[in-house]
């Protein structure tokens, strides 16, 4: 590529959008009109310390201008004293940002695994025929295919993002062609509704008990339903007491890696270096995952309370919620809840008059699956590309801004509320010896009643599917995808598998983040594999060569097998896929590369998807 010097200047609107977020520039050297300051400037370390503002500033520009123009990019670079090439590197890291002109209104249509099972393929084909290819500007609106939008319980889904003076983002669920065409024509989508868990209230629910029962915008309602009792109890227990209860509960992280939460908290609490940071990882982007969204939309104060307890136990004064960029309703609910909590003195200085100081900043992702990785999230918050870091040092020693950091998934955090209230031992009595408590499962695909289900660990897959109303009538189950794109397929013969960490591990599969996609026989699994392979190719951050190259080679091999244009024999192609998978598992530094072949290899090994030769 040629080197180009970008001396483009921002438009007035672009400057305003950036300045509205960052505040007015302090000197002409960073963009203000010249006053009398031509003889000095301050910057350096203090200016570069503002680097963490880069991601939200890019959001501000994209939201108002519809794209990151060279002039706008240069202006951000000047304001934050970051080289423009560096800003470009960050802007192009995220799918929701565009450095090419884009229609002010974009409809992102999900074509990922679950939506495909719900017919998004034909939806997109019809759409292409009716209005043209993706990206074409249709009177100020265009549409683009999108990876999983986290609305799998209401598939097929789409997301409308409208830039301008008053930007609007709105999710479309259970959408059909007519609905989509109307929106593309300019119709305003109806306001989204929160998902209500299909399980009846009071049926032993701990994590979901308030959802659908309370007004998620009312702190009073939250408190009337037991809110903030746990924080009060935590303050009585003291930080060590809280950590002891969490340790006793044997709570394992719910984001997929299943690390003991108490050990993580304890390690951070013991770090003498200050400050400590807390990150609530709400970047659930695993195709098929939507459980955290349900909590954030339906019970946002519980996340804030749980974070406050975690911060108290581990000595953090500053916390972040890193929310995936495709959850506008969850964002609004959380922003509102943060504001209320601050107003009521439940965030900020001297919480409960007990000398506890803690506040939370909401950071919005911009469409990058990798940012849910526990170290990639640091780079993203700090204003760099969201590339995972080598471990060690572990986040508990050197995490966000190089400081000791707790990173917990939303579901993990809200589990600590019942632990603190009822005690760790009581929590540990639920579930099995090694998988304690209850687990949220995102059940989607060919079931009568998709949604988020809370069941004790040890519930079998069959029981879970029955809870979801069983396989859709008139369909028969051909496979279940457990754990999402990074998980693996199991067969209808595996339905008696108890859903625990230890049993799934023994069976060579994983619970991951709790994804359960029921797949019926009408779905072409080979085609699903091409979607999964394309997903990993697209989402690989490119830092580790085995993953950067391997995900491409894997996608090509899968495409050859599916299309029948194989090289050598089917067995040659399958060996190649196995070899690529091994290289990625061995030599990638993060979970993305390490699991990028898992689902595909399980489909080959367990479902025998290519046993009958190629799919053509």
């Amino acid at each position: 590529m040629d080197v180009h010097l970008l001396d483009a200047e921002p438009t007035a609107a672009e400057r305003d959008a950036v300045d509205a977020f960052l505040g007015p520039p302090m000197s002409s050297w960073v963009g203000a009109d010249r006053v009398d300051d031509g003889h000095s400037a301050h910057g350096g370390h203090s200016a570069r310390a503002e680097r963490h503002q880069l991601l939200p500033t890019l959001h501000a520009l994209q939201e108002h201008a519809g794209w990151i123009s060279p002039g706008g990019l240069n202006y951000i670079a000047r304001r934050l004293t970051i080289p423009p090439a560096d800003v470009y590197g960050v802007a192009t890291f995220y799918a929701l940002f565009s450095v090419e002109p884009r229609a002010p209104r974009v409809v992102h249509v999900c074509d990922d695994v679950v939506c495909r099972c719900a017919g998004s393929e034909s939806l997109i084909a019809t759409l292409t025929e009716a209005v043209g290819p993706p990206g074409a500007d249709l009177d100020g609106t265009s549409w683009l295919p999108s990876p999983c939008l986290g609305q799998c319980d209401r598939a097929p889904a789409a997301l409308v993002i409208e830039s301008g003076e008053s930007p609007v983002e709105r999710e479309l669920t259970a959408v059909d062609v007519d609905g989509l065409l109307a929106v593309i024509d300019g119709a305003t989508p109806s306001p989204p509704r929160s998902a209500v868990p299909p399980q009846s209230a009071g049926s032993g629910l701990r994590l979901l008990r308030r959802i659908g029962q309370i007004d998620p915008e009312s702190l009073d309602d939250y408190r009337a339903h037991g809110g903030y009792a746990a924080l009060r109890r935590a303050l009585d227990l003291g930080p060590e007491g809280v950590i002891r209860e969490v340790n006793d509960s044997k709570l394992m992280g719910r984001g997929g890696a299943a690390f003991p939460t108490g050990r993580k908290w304890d390690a951070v609490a013991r770090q003498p270096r200050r400050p400590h940071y807390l990150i609530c990882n709400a970047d659930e982007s695993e195709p098929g995952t939507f459980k955290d969204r349900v909590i954030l939309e339906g019970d946002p104060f519980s996340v804030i309370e749980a974070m406050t307890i975690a911060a108290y136990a581990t000595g953090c004064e500053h916390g972040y919620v890193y929310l995936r960029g495709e959850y506008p309703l969850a964002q609004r609910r959380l922003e509102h809840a943060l504001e209320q909590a601050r107003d009521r003195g439940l965030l900020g200085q001297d919480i409960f008059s007990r000398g506890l100081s803690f506040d939370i900043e909401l950071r919005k992702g911009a469409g990058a699956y990798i940012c849910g990785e526990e170290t990639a999230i640091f780079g993203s918050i700090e204003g760099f590309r969201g590339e995972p870091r080598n471990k060690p040092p572990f986040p508990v020693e050197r995490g966000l801004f190089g400081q000791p950091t707790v990173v917990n998934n939303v579901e993990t955090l809200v589990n600590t509320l019942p632990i603190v209230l009822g005690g760790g031992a009581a929590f540990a009595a639920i579930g099995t010896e090694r998988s304690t408590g209850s687990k949220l499962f995102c059940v989607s695909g060919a079931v009568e009643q998709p949604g988020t289900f809370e069941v004790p660990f040890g519930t079998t897959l069959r029981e879970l599917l029955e809870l979801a109303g069983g396989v859709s009538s008139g369909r028969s189950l051909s496979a279940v995808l457990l754990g999402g794109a990074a998980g693996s397929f199991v067969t209808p013969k595996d339905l008696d598998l108890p859903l625990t960490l230890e049993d799934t591990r023994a069976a060579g599969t994983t619970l991951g983040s709790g994804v359960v996609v029921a797949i019926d026989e009408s779905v072409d699994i080979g085609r699903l594999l091409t979607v999964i392979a394309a997903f990993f190719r697209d989402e690989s951050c490119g830092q580790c060569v085995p993953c950067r190259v391997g995900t491409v080679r894997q996608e090509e091999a899968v495409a050859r097998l599916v299309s029948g244009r194989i090289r050598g024999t089917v067995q040659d192609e399958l060996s190649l896929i196995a070899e690529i998978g091994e290289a990625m598992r061995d030599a990638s530094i993060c979970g993305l590369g390490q699991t990028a072949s898992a689902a595909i290899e399980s489909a080959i090994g367990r479902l025998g998807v290519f046993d009958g030769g190629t799919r053509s």
Partner: protein
Amino acid sequence: MFGAGGGTSSYREVEETDLLILWGSNARETHPIFFHHVLKAVRRGASLHVVDPRRTGSAQWADTWLGLDVGSDIALANTVAREIIHAGLANEAFISRATSGFAEYRASVEQWTLEEGERVTGVPAQTIRELAHAYARAERAILCWTLGITEHVTGVDNVLALINLALLTGHVGRYGSGLNPLRGQNNVQGGGDMGAIPNKLPGFQDVQDDQDARARFEAAWGTKLAPKHGWHLSQMFEAMEHGELNTLYVLGENPAQSEADSKKSLALLEGLDFLIAQDIIMTKTCDMADVVFPSSASWCEADGGTVTNSERRVQRMRKALDPPGLARDDHWIICELARRLGHDWGHPSLEQAWEELRSLSPMHRGMSYARLEETGGLQWPCPSEDHPGSLFLHGRLWEEPVQGPPAPFSIATWAPPIDELSEEFPIRLTTGRRLDSYNTGVQTNLYSSPLRHGETLDLCPEDAASLDVEPGEIVRISSRRGSIEAPVRLESALRPGLAFMTIHFGDDVDVNVLTTDSNDAKSGTAEFKATAIRIDKRGSGEREAAGVASGEAGR
């Protein structure tokens, strides 16, 4: 500062210091490799302060940028000094044991209050105060400068004013604290070390004052040496003007394009009886020469030799390619020329020449080729073969008791640039270099660069607007010496009243037509950095420009 001309600190110290000042240096563009060392320090947490009229690329990395008016360096340095003294931050222990002349110095800077400093330099008093306090309070601090300091009529005093600051705070002679002029080429330092300066024999031994050294050279060379300083470059041109110099042998220089007031200097070069040019490239000077000696490129085609970098490290050179055509190594040409002139020195190898240097220059004595090979380079002074070389200079000032003479404070008196701004010439032009080009472009215009946009007159957007000129528009630029034309380019690093041009494209735009050859009597360096100009739109300004040209006749 104390005899030998070289940076006191090592690159490693630059990386491990706590505070860095780049004064009159845009190292990011002009010393990019050195700037990597600076960035390592910055990334470690060191603070960076840049003093430069332009808000350069280097300044954009700085914690504070002091955009002083061109030629007010002494005023700024003296203001910083007074503030350090009055704030009680001077290193009195160091001053009393290792320096001399402090009382006179203190009296000389007393007039430079923060307010007076702001009035003369334009830099806000508060910013000057910040720099003074930060520098004085730093545990380690390194001060670096380049041509923004030396290319002034007060160039030597500018340097002395900076040295004073180091003496005032004790920021010299310790690990991580020092004074460093940055060298523009891989062997600028080596050239001076080897005696390619008019007043010193190799190893900075004064040809006039150091009788013992002179005697050693005379014995080794079997000839008498005139005990008198030679001419520096500016004096050579003056000698040409007076008819005292009529034959010139130019090695690896391009005075036809590099000299200030180029119309005048070209005429003088043309008036020579005989001009010899020795170069690896056919420069403009070669075009004018009576005889051209094509030489090999010493860094890849010459068989051996050494170079010395900005941290005084002497390193071996090795041959990678055969020189093209009739090109010969510089030392072969010199020896052959001597032979034809009746002095047969034979053809010693470069190692033999080096051995002679070691026998005559005490600071190089410990550096055998074998040791240079083995260590990858040694830093002078290295007086014996068991000496490890010197990480930094002037450690003696911290010894108990101090070895040798105390380091003297100097009185540096500020004077404005010679070329005064006036109603007729209201804009200050300063010249410099860009990242991808070097000096007169001889070495760099041979390859293309995506960054290069040819010569332009850089103006801030406000000046362009008030002059009613557009980017790309060709304007006439006139000084008291002549006028040239160049396209306008907008540059946000400039402020109203300050313009910038390079010297890289002399074949297209001879910027040195504008510059003054007024030079520092002590160094002979011309004031390239401060020219008073006017800018006229083409057409409308023709008559005025003609007036300027005719006005020049009386000069």
